[in-house]
């Protein structure tokens, strides 16, 4: 009967939300990001990787804080007699000298710059390019999606190392920008696919329909509603991929087609160090440890971020 629905009028007008703790000021609510931050601070994986990355970034910005030696000035009297002296912390001969008589420790410190620059910039550009392609393909769908997805497939089909070799050998100078371009050229497809899938999911939400029925423009729907809600998986993939790009730079430099002297880079040093593996293994192992630690730090960061942003893992 109709009367059963006539709940008292007061009940319909003043239900207040359960006051969350201190209700004095309209508190800035806990968004997904603040929730994630809350989670991250408690995660030892994140803390370790964050400390490593901060040290690395300081190394990039102020290498002279870590060593007074120059990475490019060699004293040939040290050549091969300069075995590492592991008790001399932060000294010029902490990790010994290389074949040119240059301080290996200084080269480990200064090599961070090229490596991190490549890793961070490639990740940034890949996220922008791949994100835009994925956004356009996922949002508009239809033939636009078909064309963009097939182009993505074509790029995805190029073997990573082979493609990078082809690009890099056509440019003779091995500087940072050429390497970044090569990695961007081959790396954007992964992000584009993730972004497309994420956009397609978000596009079907009721709040997107609501914005459409209000008459919102395509740009508003894309950047106010879809991007903020679709960006989380992209960030996760990008953070994890960052370690991969650093490893790729080292690989390409090792193969002699990435960065080259006089650029100071870990990959270049690993490549140079392989010749003396039996007599002076420190020349190879020291920069290799830096690559491993950096890649590990970024992959751990990516893992921690994924766990924090993925509500299903809570």
């Amino acid at each position: 009967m109709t009367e059963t629905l006539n709940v008292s009028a007061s009940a319909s007008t003043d239900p207040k939300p359960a006051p969350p703790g201190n209700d004095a000021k309209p508190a800035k609510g806990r968004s997904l990001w603040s929730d994630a931050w809350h989670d991250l601070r408690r995660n030892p994986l994140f803390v370790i990787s964050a400390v490593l990355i901060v040290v690395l970034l300081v190394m990039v910005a102020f290498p002279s804080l870590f060593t007074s030696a120059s990475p490019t000035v060699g004293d040939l009297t040290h050549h091969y007699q300069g075995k590492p002296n592991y008790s001399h912390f932060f000294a010029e001969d902490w990790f010994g000298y290389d074949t040119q008589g240059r301080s290996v420790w200084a080269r480990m410190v200064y090599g961070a710059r090229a490596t991190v620059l490549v890793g961070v910039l490639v990740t940034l550009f890949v996220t922008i390019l791949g994100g835009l392609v994925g956004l356009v393909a996922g949002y508009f769908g239809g033939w636009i999606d078909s064309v963009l997805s097939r182009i993505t497939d074509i790029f995805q089909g190029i073997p990573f190392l082979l493609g990078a070799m082809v690009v890099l050998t056509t440019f003779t100078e091995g500087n940072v920008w050429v390497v970044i371009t090569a990695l961007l050229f081959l790396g954007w497809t992964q992000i584009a696919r993730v972004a497309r899938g994420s956009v397609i999911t978000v596009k079907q939400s009721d709040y997107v329909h609501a914005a459409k029925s209000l008459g919102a423009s395509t740009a508003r729907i894309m950047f106010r509603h879809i991007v903020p809600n679709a960006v989380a998986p992209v960030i996760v993939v990008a953070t994890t991929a960052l370690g991969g790009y650093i490893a790729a730079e080292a690989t390409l430099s090792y193969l002699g087609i990435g960065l080259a002297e006089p650029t100071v880079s870990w990959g270049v040093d690993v490549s140079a160090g392989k010749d003396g593996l039996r007599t002076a293994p420190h020349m190879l192992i020291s920069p290799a440890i830096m690559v491993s630690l950096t890649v590990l730090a970024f992959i751990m960061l990516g893992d921690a971020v994924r766990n924090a942003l993925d509500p299903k893992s809570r």
Partner: protein
Amino acid sequence: MSEKPQLTKQTESSYAAGEPILEVRDLVKHFPLTQGVLFKRQVGAVKAVDGISFDLYPGETLGIVGESGCGKSTVAKLLMNLEAPTSGTIRYKGEDITKLSGRALKAVRRNIQMVFQDPYTSLNPRMTVGDIIGEPFDIHPEVAPKGDRRAKVQELLDVVGLNPEYVNRYPHQFSGGQRQRIGIARGLALRPEIIVADEPVSALDVSVQAQVVNLMERLQDEFGLSYMFIAHDLSIVRHISDRVGVMYLGKMAEIGSDEEIYEHPTHPYTQALLSAVPVPDPEAEGRRERIVLEGDVPSPANPPSGCRFRTRCWKAEARCAEEVPLLAIPAPFEEAESGAAHPSACHFAEERAAVVAV
């Protein structure tokens, strides 16, 4: 409350009273079924909505009921221009809105707004309540000058019974019922004349359902709104609606005033639907006769010929497979004064004594 809500009542429109504000004629929506990845070819169509006509009058509530998959929500999306109809017309004050685009469409959207089913997915989790309710003003800046917006948003929160200080909170800090109020406030922001509510209370607790329905009724009186209320809960539809349409498999089976549909149903599907509603009185519950339909709803991709309901109907005869019954007042009741004289799409429409109304 020291201040009264500043929203003024709907001004008397120049549109003549008694004329429908929304006229829907032969509305059809077929979703193509395709095969192939690159070169798609159509292998069939899901006939979600297959020729629906109805009118909505100013200030009235038209309820649409029907089971899941009968096309109710597709009708709502078509009315909101979120989907383009395959054919048919939707006239808002005489103007066909299905062909509009750009500025003209944006202008019409101001007058037709929607309240969504699931309050958990209809609010953007990354926006504050103030941004969500204020977004209509950003999109239609002519409605509210920039300086006024915050005040307007707080007014709207007050109108729907929420504390105006909650503007900086995020949707997940609210309960389902409160979220639905936020959704209603967003729908009201542009002062529309028509609100399409697609199962607005289905996702809520029963006690909260009543609050939201009461709120919607109060807002209707306050702002002179016309509602198109889609639901599958027959009691709520009866409570809020002036007229009710019953849908089955993309077609309207029966339409009439709430009394005509609930007290004098003539279509067998409506009778079966009503007989399934539980009655709170155990004695009456024991006495009444339930009509148990057999089989499942046929696939809308391959609906039965003739009458859509014939595969599950106990009255079906050869004629039902050949002739599509028209939605019209059945011949035996044309002259009758009784409540049975309302449109019903059945060749053998008749009243049935044992149906207990809700």
